[in-house]
């Protein structure tokens, strides 16, 4: 009885839920045969932004467009393309927004310079603190 009810309800619910009518692209939910290539693809997919979702990578999303992007990544990797070339191809189309891995550009260099500066500041804080100490202890 419960099962029957569920079936009826599901039939009713289906049109509401229909979003797009086509099945996902072949490699949206299917791994590449070669584990080496699949590992490359997975690593890349985790660093590409799903454009339809809010701050999720295409590897963590059920959005159809994320599926289509995964298909692009996997087929291109299978065709022997370098993961970084695929990233560059996407950046050429969507700008840096699509990649979670910032490049060093005129707009992003502080992202890398500031941690380096922090490293230097940390060094000086520690040195300042302890150099004086040991001198004080020696007196």
């Amino acid at each position, binding site marked *: 009885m419960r099962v029957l009810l569920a079936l009826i309800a599901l039939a009713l619910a289906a049109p509401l839920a229909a979003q797009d009518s086509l099945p996902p692209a072949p490699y949206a939910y299917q791994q590449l045969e070669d584990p080496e290539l699949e590992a490359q693809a997975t690593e890349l997919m985790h660093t590409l932004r799903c454009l339809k979702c809010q701050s999720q990578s295409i590897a963590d999303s059920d959005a159809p467009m994320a599926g289509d992007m995964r298909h692009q990544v996997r087929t291109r990797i299978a065709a022997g393309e370098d993961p970084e070339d695929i990233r560059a191809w996407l950046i050429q189309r*969507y700008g840096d927004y699509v990649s979670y891995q910032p490049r060093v550009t005129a707009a992003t260099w502080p992202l890398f310079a500031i941690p380096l500066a922090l490293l230097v500041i940390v060094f000086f804080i520690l040195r300042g603190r302890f150099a004086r100490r040991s001198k004080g202890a020696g007196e």
Partner: protein
Amino acid sequence: MKGLRYFLWGLVALAAGLFGLFAYQLTQPKDEFVESAMIGQPIPAFDLRPALESQPGLSSADLADGQPKLVNIFASWCVPCRAEAPQLETLRDSGAEIVGIAIRDRPEDVAAFLQVYGNPFTRVGADDISEVQLSLGSSGVPETFVVDGNGVITYQHIGDIRPEHVPGILARLREAGA
């Protein structure tokens, strides 16, 4: 001690900068649109099978035939696409040539959709795995691109076309034709 004082005033300045940035961003309208970086670029090569039995499909060669065109990216399952249908009709009646790319759609659904909401297109290509959409740098439906006669993308309109957008798009199309 002097070092600490400088450091703290630095921190005050940093906080002030941060609050300034927050205040500025609060006054900015938040748009979630991801703009295509392909504007000014020639349209990438593609060849899509027809989405309808009655009309031809779409290839990149069709977009470099000397005539400026509007490329409308749509889908039968997309609700705002229904809302913009009258504006597409207006654009066509004003002399724009519009070609369509149907995203992730079945032929019968496309046919039914165009039957109900009107068919402003001269050609409709079917993009089943969003491949052309991705290569155009488009991130949703509906979007409309202006492509000049040489097949170069000159403008992108994101979201549904409202009546107030029509004159602007026509102007862009004229620019692309000149």
